[in-house]
């Protein structure tokens, strides 16, 4: 199912490949500007991240959070909605997950504690997502604007809750969650990668199936392709939009498990910050296909961890900037491939244009 490459699939792969090459080219130019030979930097990035099990584990740790946030953005994009609120949804998830983890009795067994914490994270993220979706569907408020406002509001609320109730003795760290709620680290030389990676892989498989083989998947993609057509065949568009945004929010909220249950075991100020925004890059580079998003998350995790690994050669701000370049390149590459077709495939990211016109 995954390996069968259709004409449309090939166009997606082409677009992603062009975007990656363009980003590498632009990144190389920036390295030349800084006065470092690009070949050296790229090679060092690849070599230092893959040769050492600890750094490789860090790449996988970053990729886990990115994959979950990327799935969140990708799911919404499939339904024609742009979820740049993953950042706020993740923060809400982190807070809820840690609150649940600390509130449980100390001897709670893990088969109860872990699901409860995951549920809390998904619920908190899902509520934020549902609010964005409902505002879009029923009030016509653009999801990008409401998402940005909610990102700021959620971040401030989390900081306030932390300062007022959670942070201990002048630190910006709350109390530890109960032992039963901790997810085990994976054996990568003591790095942060943990059991959440398995959950993320499971969700990639689940979403791949939902998206391509169920009525549900057909429904939300129909809404993304053309809301008017979807309405005319009897799909309740506002309800689908709200539910999809709630689910997207839940996915971003679940990324909290990677940071709270798997690694830090407490609420910390700024935990997971930036992962939601980088998830946008993962979703676009993965062309909204769950498997593609997983691969894109790995690449971006490599770029992110690799950027730190080569910080002695180029400033780490350069790799931060590259993340924006990737999004820009992938947004332009889709239509370019579609305009130079062998079989004129349609571009799922570009299909938003129909919706944008209707808005």
């Amino acid at each position, binding site marked *: 199912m995954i390996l069968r490459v259709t004409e449309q699939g090939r166009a997606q792969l082409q677009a992603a490949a062009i975007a990656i090459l363009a980003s590498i080219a632009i990144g190389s130019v920036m390295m030349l500007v800084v006065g470092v030979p690009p070949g050296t930097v790229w090679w060092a990035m690849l070599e230092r991240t893959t040769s050492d099990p600890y750094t490789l584990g860090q790449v996988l740790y970053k990729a886990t959070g990115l994959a979950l946030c990327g799935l969140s953005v990708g799911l919404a994009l499939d339904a024609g909605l742009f979820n740049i609120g993953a950042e706020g949804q993740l923060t809400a998830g982190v807070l809820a997950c840690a609150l649940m983890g600390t509130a449980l009795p100390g001897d709670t067994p893990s088969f109860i504690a872990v699901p409860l914490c995951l549920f809390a994270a998904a619920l908190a993220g899902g509520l934020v997502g549902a609010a964005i979706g409902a505002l879009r569907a029923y009030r016509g408020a653009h999801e990008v604007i409401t998402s*940005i*406002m909610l990102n*700021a509001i959620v971040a401030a609320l989390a900081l306030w809750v932390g300062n007022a109730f959670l942070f201990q003795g002048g630190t910006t760290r709350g109390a530890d969650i109960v032992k039963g709620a901790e997810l085990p680290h994976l054996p990568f030389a003591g790095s942060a990668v943990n059991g959440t990676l398995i959950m993320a892989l499971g969700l990639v498989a689940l979403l791949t199936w939902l998206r391509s083989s169920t009525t549900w998947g057909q429904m939300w993609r129909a809404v993304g392709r053309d809301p008017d057509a979807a309405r005319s065949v009897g799909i309740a568009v506002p309800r689908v939009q709200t539910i999809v945004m709630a689910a997207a929010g839940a996915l971003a909220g679940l990324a909290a498990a990677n940071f709270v249950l798997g690694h830090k075991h407490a609420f910390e100020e700024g935990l997971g910050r930036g992962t939601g925004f980088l998830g*946008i890059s993962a979703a676009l580079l993965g062309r909204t296909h769950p498997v593609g998003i997983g691969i894109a998350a790995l690449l971006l995790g490599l770029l992110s961890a690799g950027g730190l690994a080569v910080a002695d050669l180029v400033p780490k701000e350069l790799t931060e900037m590259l993340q*924006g370049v990737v999004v*820009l390149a992938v947004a332009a590459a889709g239509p370019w491939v579609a305009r130079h077709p062998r079989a004129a495939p349609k571009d799922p990211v*570009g299909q*938003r*244009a129909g919706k944008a016109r209707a*808005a």
Partner: protein
Amino acid sequence: MSEVIAAVFSLQVLRMAVPYALAALGGAITERSGVIDLALEAKLLFGAFTAAAVAHATGSPLAGVLGGIAAGMLVAAVQCLASLRLGADHVIVGVALNLLALGGTRFLLQLFYGEGANSPPAPGYGDAVLASPIVWLAIVASIVVPIALVKTKWGLRLRAAGDRPDALVAVGVSPVRARLYAALVGGALAGAGGAQLSLAVGGFSADMSGGRGYIALAMVILAGWRPAWAALACVGVALAERLSIELQLRTAAVPAELLHILPYVLTLAVLVVGGARRPPPRALGSR
């Protein structure tokens, strides 16, 4: 309480309203021509950085303002290249440019000054609100832009490009070119708004736009894409921002973390209650 009110309604409000208002005026022009302007945040941020860098290098705040304007126009040119020439999705291009601005200004800070968070001090206009040419630009633009949209050939063509690009083609005018000219003017205004951000405090700091571009766009939508009303709504946002600062200074009744989000909460509330009653330009977002 009365002193809070007096402080809120002082001339300083004007200073805080200017970045919002210039961004909103620029956004209104760009959107009326049919280009979705989520890149306002990038224009503010690059404008703020360039203004501080140029003012620091030349010692002249006026040169800084011009630098900010040029930076805003450059972002608008890239935006048009990506969404009109290459046919990329307007919303995604906007978000990409905003990400790029966030990382890019940090990168340039590192490159120029070897520091990731703040620029060296730049000569600015400080507290003398009425001595700043940017404040006057904002006041003049709030009056001129609405008139120019209706009365000039430039305004007529850009509105046609936003509503009926095919009609523009029929009379032999390229809608893409009309949109480019509109976006460049819009970018110049937003860039000037960015210059106000950094020159008013005498230097650039990373992420100093802090979501103002998004708020400005929300005000454009709320005002039904009418520039004068959008600018007026921005004064309201500035009042909320001013109020939150004054309350932070004077009272401990509400935690500071929550007061600081007052403009965001207000914007969200307005979007929920107000909705968009006027329709957007008909060809908004087309490529």
